[in-house]
């Protein structure tokens, strides 16, 4: 067994030193009645070449974005992942390190998290960001819980244009604390602000919007902020950070807490996980924030160093009174994002956004030329849009697959009202050639 270092001779030596004759003697506390009397019923161990063959076979049965032009979005996007990221995160000192509880031996991780926090705060227009949570959906849920704790109120008002998968997670997290969720309808692809005004009251802890929203449309965050703050509630905005190189950040529009799915920042698609939960807030909320925080300080010699700080909020000290139960976060994904943002930099991130914007609009224009196909909503959109199709979107997607195109997300399973709609995302990776090919295939599919 190549991962077990001790030879039978060494095992014998160790048993002798302990003063027992076999490992069985060390298991005396386990009652016989509890002992498994047979080997585990699992496939036998595979030698490495067989293992690789088996896994390649499994991997080969999936339509990867390497072989297919990926126009899928809905919370996970095929953005560029620059090559240095993989090389750097595979350095053993990064990926086999533990949580930095012994800071003197973890300055690499701590320093990179500090950089991550800085970059996310900057992108979102907020004062402070944490070291990451599991994913965008659970970040959103944690934000709702935090708003409840801060305001003492029970009501969470959620726009129905927030990603339905994220909304489901918020519902699940709100069960325990028994928070009351209220949905606000959308009109023409964006949150109905009049309905929002009526829904917000003195029992509202937070209002939740997504920017751009699930349908790809841009919301009027500033007005939503006015409505929310007039009721002394907190505005939570869920935003894809990769878009914030171009878009006005939610912090500048009045958000109190910004969350989001950070997968677009250099984290692979990987069938939906692991992801990167972004969480940022205003300064006055910092002590109520869930998750880890890294802060700068000095050592005994006055040298700059970094530590986990404000830890008394966390479960290992506060236990049942902790701001949350989070222990593990997604440090390695946060590191990917940090390196991504360092590589893209000021100008590169802007370019990613501008290219995605331009190509998405080109695609929307071209696709709308196909008879029977139209943009479902008139609202401005960024890199994702909703198409209304004259034929079943599931069938269209199947036809597009034959052309090696992952055409988008049919919306029927997530929301029956949009069963004739397809959610299409276009990133900087999609070429004009791919978009034109899609157009032609779409035309054939709906003819």
């Amino acid at each position, binding site marked *: 067994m190549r991962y077990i270092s001790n030879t039978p001779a060494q095992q014998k030596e160790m048993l002798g030193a302990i003063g027992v004759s076999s490992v069985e003697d*060390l298991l005396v506390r386990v009652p016989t009645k509890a002992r498994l009397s047979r080997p585990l019923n699992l496939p036998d161990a595979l030698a490495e070449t067989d293992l690789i063959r088996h896994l390649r076979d499994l991997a080969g049965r999936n339509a*990867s974005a390497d072989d297919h032009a990926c126009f899928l979005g809905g919370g996970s996007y095929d953005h560029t992942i620059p090559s240095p990221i993989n090389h750097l995160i595979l350095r053993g000192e990064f990926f086999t390190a533990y949580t930095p509880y012994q800071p003197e031996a973890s300055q690499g991780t701590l320093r990179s998290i500090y950089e991550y926090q800085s970059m996310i705060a900057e992108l979102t227009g907020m004062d402070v960001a944490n070291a990451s949570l599991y994913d965008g959906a659970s970040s959103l849920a944690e934000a709702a819980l935090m708003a409840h704790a801060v305001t003492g109120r029970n009501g969470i008002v959620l726009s129905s244009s927030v990603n339905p998968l994220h909304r489901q997670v918020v519902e699940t997290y709100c069960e325990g604390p028994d928070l009351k969720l209220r949905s606000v309808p959308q009109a023409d692809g964006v949150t109905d602000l009049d309905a929002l005004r009526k829904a917000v009251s003195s029992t509202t802890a937070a209002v939740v919007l997504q920017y751009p929203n699930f349908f790809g449309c841009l919301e009027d965050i500033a007005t939503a902020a006015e409505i929310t703050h007039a009721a002394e509630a907190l505005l939570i905005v869920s935003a894809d950070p990769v878009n914030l190189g171009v878009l006005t950040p939610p912090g500048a529009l009045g958000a109190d807490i910004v969350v989001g799915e950070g997968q677009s920042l250099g984290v692979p698609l990987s069938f939906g996980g692991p992801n990167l939960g972004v969480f940022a807030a205003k300064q006055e909320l910092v002590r109520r924030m869930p998750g880890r925080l890294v802060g700068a300080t000095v050592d005994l010699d006055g040298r700059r160093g970094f530590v986990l700080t404000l830890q008394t909020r966390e479960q290992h000290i506060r236990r049942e009174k902790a701001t949350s139960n989070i*222990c*593990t976060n997604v*440090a390695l994904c946060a590191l990917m994002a940090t390196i991504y943002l360092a590589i*893209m930099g000021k100008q590169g991130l802007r370019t990613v956004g501008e290219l995605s914007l331009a190509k998405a609009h080109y695609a929307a224009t071209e696709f709308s030329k196909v008879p029977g196909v139209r943009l479902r909503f008139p609202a401005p959109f960024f890199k994702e849009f909703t198409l209304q199709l004259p034929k079943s979107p599931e069938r269209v997607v199947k036809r597009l697959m034959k052309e090696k195109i992952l055409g988008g997300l049919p919306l029927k399973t997530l929301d029956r009202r949009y069963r004739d709609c397809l959610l299409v995302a276009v990133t900087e990776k999609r070429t004009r050639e791919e978009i034109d090919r899609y157009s032609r295939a779409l035309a054939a599919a709906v003819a």
Partner: protein
Amino acid sequence: MRSARASYDKVIFELSSPGRFACSLPACDVPESDPAALLPKAYLREMPPELPEVSEVDVIRHYSRLSQMNYGVDTHFYPLGSCTMKYNPKINEDMARLAGFLRLHPLAPEAASQGALALMHELARDLAEISGMDEVTLQPAAGAQGELCGVLMIRAYHLARGERRHKVLIPDSAHGTNPASTALAGYGVVQLKSGESGEVDLEDLTRHLDEDVAAFMITQPNTLGLFEARIHQITEMCHAKGVQVYMDGANLNAILGITRPGDLGFDVCHFNLHKTFTTPHGGGGPGAGPVGIKSHLAPFLPVPVVAKDADSYRLDWSRPQSIGKLQAFWGNFGMLVRAYTYIRTMGPNGLRSVSENAVLNANYVLKRLEADYDRSAPGPCMHECVLSARRQKRLGVSATDIAKRLLDLGFYAPSVYFPLIVEEALMIEPTETESKETLDAFCDAMIQIAREAESDPQLVRDAPVTTPVRRLDQTLAARQPELRWKASGR
């Protein structure tokens, strides 16, 4: 004494030079590329974000230097109790990076994701067999989220039976996530006293067990590294009052192929794939926290469930009593691939050997150190041992000091001050992937420190001195939190 290589004090922003870039993006190949022509002005950011402007060389050099300031399992023995810092196999990384896995979108049509769904289904089945449970959900993103998932399922179970229970019993030896997750699920936490060896105090349990208790959560083996031998009696006592029993699976590395939670009477257990199943810790995640259940809890599993029909797989969303969702998609798939690869590499005999060697290694360390450090309990331990630095504390050397001195001697420290019920606790989990030579070197170092505590305690208290930084001012960091880099700063 400090390695020159280790002395690097830059933050990426400080390497910035206007106009430098590291990325390579194509020119725009579509006609309209001006954002102002495509979006209303109000949506457009006036100033680009203040991100670094560095070259690719800067990036590689900076992050490589940063990595050199870390201790990882790849470079150091890492005896962190309860974390199972075992070797992370590199084949796992290769398999997780196969394009068919890495580059698969979660919302791709199910017919085009059959390999991924098959892997998930098989992994769930393997974990069910390993734990003696009936079904497994792979959705929770980490152990703590697994705990929340499990407790929410228990809650749903009671509600479905028309019962509203309000309390969960948790021993004082438990990991902090246990009460935190329980509180998040809306329950009141009742803390039970543990016995001297961290075992359940049956009298205290009896006193508190009633029909308002929804669940009893314990770690098995317990957080002192000891197997709770009366577990059948405990689970029976609980079930007699309709109380569900939850096993925190953090210590599963002790019992693979030896015993199984499902056979001990547990109703729910979670797995920490980043502990037992070698997925890398990554500096603090991502992890994965699948949850195993007995069939009476199956209706409450989070959606979607990976289902198999004859030869094909699908995501089953029609679960009306489901507790809902914990993360947006289906689970930390990348970590699931790694765990699956590991289980296929080891096979049933290999997994059994893992636990046997984990137990052997921990007992060897215990034997070598028991003369110099106080044991926390008599008899053999399982995969980890808890020592107390009580004696050293009387000489002015605390568990923290010992941990810091170990860093100088080339080892990562054990867990300290956990469990809370042991004074000056040092929790040592060597894992099965370490050799006798490494264990001997570690024990030699621990014994050396015990000697130093007697002859030169200040030396220990001054540690570490060879790391890139010495002890850091935690008070300053908490009183004046500086959580982001500012252009004018430092």
